[in-house]
């Protein structure tokens, strides 16, 4: 049998072609565009680092970066802990557990737009939640019309949507935690809480890091929740705009500033890459301890 060095590449070619066309080329194009003043209709002159200088002075950029950061800080801890607790419940084999698991997974497969509309109806100034609040004698709350509450409402939707997805990841990981570890701990007299902290959590730590990393990235680049709950506006005065929303608002349409939007995308990419590298480094250091 002769070994031809190009054979593996032939097999890889279709996949590589697709990812070059739809991932690598657009990504490289974005990097090039970020140093130009290109518009949606093509063209654009090389402008050096002008876009980045403008960004540093652009209050909208700092606001969006701050909101994205807040969003990430707000959603990561609940998304690391809550799905784990739900997974531990869903792991039990009891009658009707299938319904429970399905109920938690449904938001994951539901369309983001449908989810957004349902939550808009719930949280609207005349929505279900506010009607209940008013019926109980309270005053209506501006869930979608106050910039801080809008961010918090969006976080709640993100957490609600993410629960099922991360629950499945935890379920797979929990199945791999050796039963004898739990049995040994029980023999040593450890109660359920002690076993959770001393057996389950250490065994699941790599999974928790993965969930933290994934939810941090998803949280930082949140778009659909904010977009749908704010009716595409980024909240009153644009005060709840996040990074991806800012990119969309800047670059959209025939009059979009594609050069500046690309520069924003590049900065977002660098931030996310940095976040992931830090997470991985922390994980590796703990592995070595």
């Amino acid at each position: 049998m002769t070994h031809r060095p190009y054979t593996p590449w032939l097999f890889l070619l279709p996949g590589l072609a697709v990812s070059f066309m739809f991932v690598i080329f657009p990504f490289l194009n974005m990097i090039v565009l970020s140093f130009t003043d290109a518009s949606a209709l093509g063209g654009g002159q090389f402008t050096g680092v002008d876009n980045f200088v403008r960004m540093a002075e652009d209050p909208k950029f700092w606001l969006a970066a701050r909101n994205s950061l807040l969003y990430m800080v707000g959603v990561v801890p609940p998304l690391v802990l809550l799905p784990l607790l739900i997974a531990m419940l869903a792991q039990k084999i009891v009658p009707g557990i299938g319904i429970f698991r399905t109920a938690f997974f449904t938001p994951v497969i539901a369309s983001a737009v449908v989810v957004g509309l349902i939550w808009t109806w719930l949280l609207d100034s005349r929505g279900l939640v506010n009607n209940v609040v008013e019926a109980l004698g309270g005053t209506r709350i501006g869930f979608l019309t106050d910039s801080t509450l809008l961010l918090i409402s969006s976080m709640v939707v993100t957490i609600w949507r993410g629960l099922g997805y991360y629950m499945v990841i935890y379920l797979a990981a929990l199945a791999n935690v050796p039963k004898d570890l739990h049995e040994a701990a029980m023999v040593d007299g450890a109660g359920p809480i002690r076993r959770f902290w001393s057996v389950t959590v250490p065994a699941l730590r790599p999974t928790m890091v993965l969930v933290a990393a994934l939810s941090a990235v998803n949280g930082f680049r949140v778009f659909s929740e904010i977009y749908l709950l704010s009716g595409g506006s980024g909240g009153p005065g644009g005060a709840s705009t996040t990074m991806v929303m800012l990119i969309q608002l800047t670059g959209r349409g025939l009059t979009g500033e594609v050069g500046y939007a690309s520069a924003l995308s590049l900065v977002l990419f660098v931030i996310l890459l940095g976040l992931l590298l830090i997470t991985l480094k922390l994980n590796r250091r703990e592995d070595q301890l």
Partner: protein
Amino acid sequence: MKRRTFLAGLAALPVAGPLAGCGLGGSTGSGSSASGQVTGEITFQTWSLKPKYTDYVNGVIDAFQKQHQGTSVKWVDQPADGYLAKVMADASAGSLPDVINVPPDLSFPLAKAGQLVDLDQNLKEAKPEYLENAWQAFEIPGKGGCYGFPWYLNTGPIFYNKALFTQAGLDPDKPPKTFKELEEQALKLAQSKKIAMLGQTPTIADFGLYGVKVFENDKFTFNDAKGVEFVESYKRMYDAGALIPEALTQNYTGAGAKFMAQQTALNPGSAYDLGKFKTDAPSLYANIGISTPITNTGSANMFLHGVSVPRSSKNQATALAFGRFVTNAENQVKFAKLASIFPSTSKGGDDPYFTTEDGTDEARVRVAAAKQLKTAVNYTPVQFSDQMREALLQQLADAMLGKKSAKQALDDAVAECNRLLK
């Protein structure tokens, strides 16, 4: 190492996503000559006309092909959702269809980038066939040239909820006609019944209707004293609860939905909306009041669509002939009768359909709108882009919330719009 590559890949994918496809290329190729022979194949792209108007459009195409033997028109209809994205992708790839349906705010950036055929240069004789204000809507202000055949027009009546007016002690037969009356009645409505009059902060067209000079000498100018006075009036209404809280973030569609849900008492609309109320909100329809638009200038606002021919078209002569044919008086009147819209041709409006009432609400709205259109103005400057609309909405929200004075908010909005103009 493997995991790092995987995660980095994960991050790269969605970030690269939003801008994928916008290239540096962009072609403004001049295509064929406009004075060639009318023959060969062209593509005609419309904005969301299928399936409701399929028979009508096919009929127009058949008639054109019969009149010009040897031509063939391929019709593609794009849904309203994503229409802009499709035009944008085609425009940056230099592959726009031969005849495209575009409103003035879409034709403007294309014309500015040199992508559309100038009708003033190539088909000047067509100009008298259209209403002057409609033809002007497709010109680049200050630079001349017309870049689209005006197609259908619309102007809105205002709709108001008679039941809510009555509950608040307002005369249901005397809706506001000017902005001063609007504020008076809105405050009364809000104070007596805690009912909001409006679902939206003012749009740029509202500034025009108020009598503010929106755009002059290549610059936005709506931050003058009159503009400030207008925003201050809205601020007083907002503080009194005459605007729903969502008004700070929502657009026309959102405001329309709130009016249908009877959460607001008044909303501008179009003849098309009346049919929607009938089927989707029958309890509102039973109490609907219809009036002329609120304006301080005596003129109503006008919306319009047109068809443009890109310079990249390989068959410009046929494309221009077809564009003129689709928008001629006969075809426009036929279309208007089907679709609650109005013809932009100088003769079309004389059709008895637009001048005589038959006792129905629809006819009343139609005749009133047709009358308004004679003096109507497109108060939204063609330069006013999506980004500018967003900037105005955001600044007005800050003014309503009291984070900025009306003057400051308008100064900031004007500065941002003028920056985006470049």
